[in-house]
């Protein structure tokens, strides 16, 4: 959604041509991200003529400030979509930056890894808005991601297993 999409597209902006195809996954309730993604990919195609991408939507796993218990239910519901989708895509690398949508996708990928079907590298980049505290997605994925990147030094101190590269968006 919104800010998350803008941030993730900036993260992708300097990646080489080898990162292809890119599979974008976002919430079904998100009306604006598709246009942003298409605009970004159009520009990317000007430099990398062979770049490929796909777009997929899954149900939104959590509304802002939704209660914990109902969030677990809605996230499990989203997994009914994310699990077959992740199985179909079998990604080598998952890059996410915090919207609730990333939790069911990453959990699906972890499950596929545990079952020996496909092991993906999970890279989580916490939003630049997070200076002192982690988002809920961040708190969960800090333990389950392979690389957890923060953009402010205070978070690096609080979460020592994280990676700090400075501001990257």
């Amino acid at each position, binding site marked *: 959604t919104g800010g998350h999409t803008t941030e993730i597209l900036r993260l992708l902006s300097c990646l*080489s041509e080898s990162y292809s195809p890119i599979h974008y996954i976002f919430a079904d309730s998100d009306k604006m991200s598709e246009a942003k993604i298409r605009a970004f990919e159009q520009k990317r195609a000007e430099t990398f003529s062979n770049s490929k991408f796909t777009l997929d939507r899954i149900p939104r796993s959590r509304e802002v*400030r939704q209660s914990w218990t109902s969030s677990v239910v809605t996230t499990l519901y989203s997994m009914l979509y994310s699990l077959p989708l992740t199985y179909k895509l079998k990604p080598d690398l998952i890059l996410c930056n915090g919207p609730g949508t990333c939790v069911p996708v990453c959990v699906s990928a972890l499950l596929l890894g545990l079952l020996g079907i496909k092991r993906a590298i999970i890279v989580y980049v916490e939003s630049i808005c997070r*200076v002192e*505290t982690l988002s809920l997605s961040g708190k969960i994925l800090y333990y389950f991601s392979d690389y957890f990147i923060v953009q402010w030094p205070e978070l690096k101190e609080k979460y020592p297993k994280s990676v700090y590269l400075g501001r990257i*968006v």
Partner: protein
Amino acid sequence: FRFKDSLAEDLRRADLVISHAGAGSCLETLEKGKPLVVVINEKLMNNHQLELAKQLHRDGHVLCCNCSTLVETLQSMDLSTLKPFPPGQPEKFALFLDKVVGFQ
């Protein structure tokens, strides 16, 4: 005005921006190199949304005030004290990711 698709044009023409503490508004304004006064309404915003505005203020990139001190801030502000906001560096992320994935 109500909602526009993009404020880019208005930002380009502005000499000063007065905004709420939303991250998108702050960053977009700072990246265009415009002086920014952030008005914080603690009652409306939840805590995490203030983190960025507070940090930007600590780093000297924005002026901060609340609704009741806005006029006074505008009257007494010295915009030359604001520090420029360097852009983020996604190239550092690309370098890092290349190592992680094994492209070198």
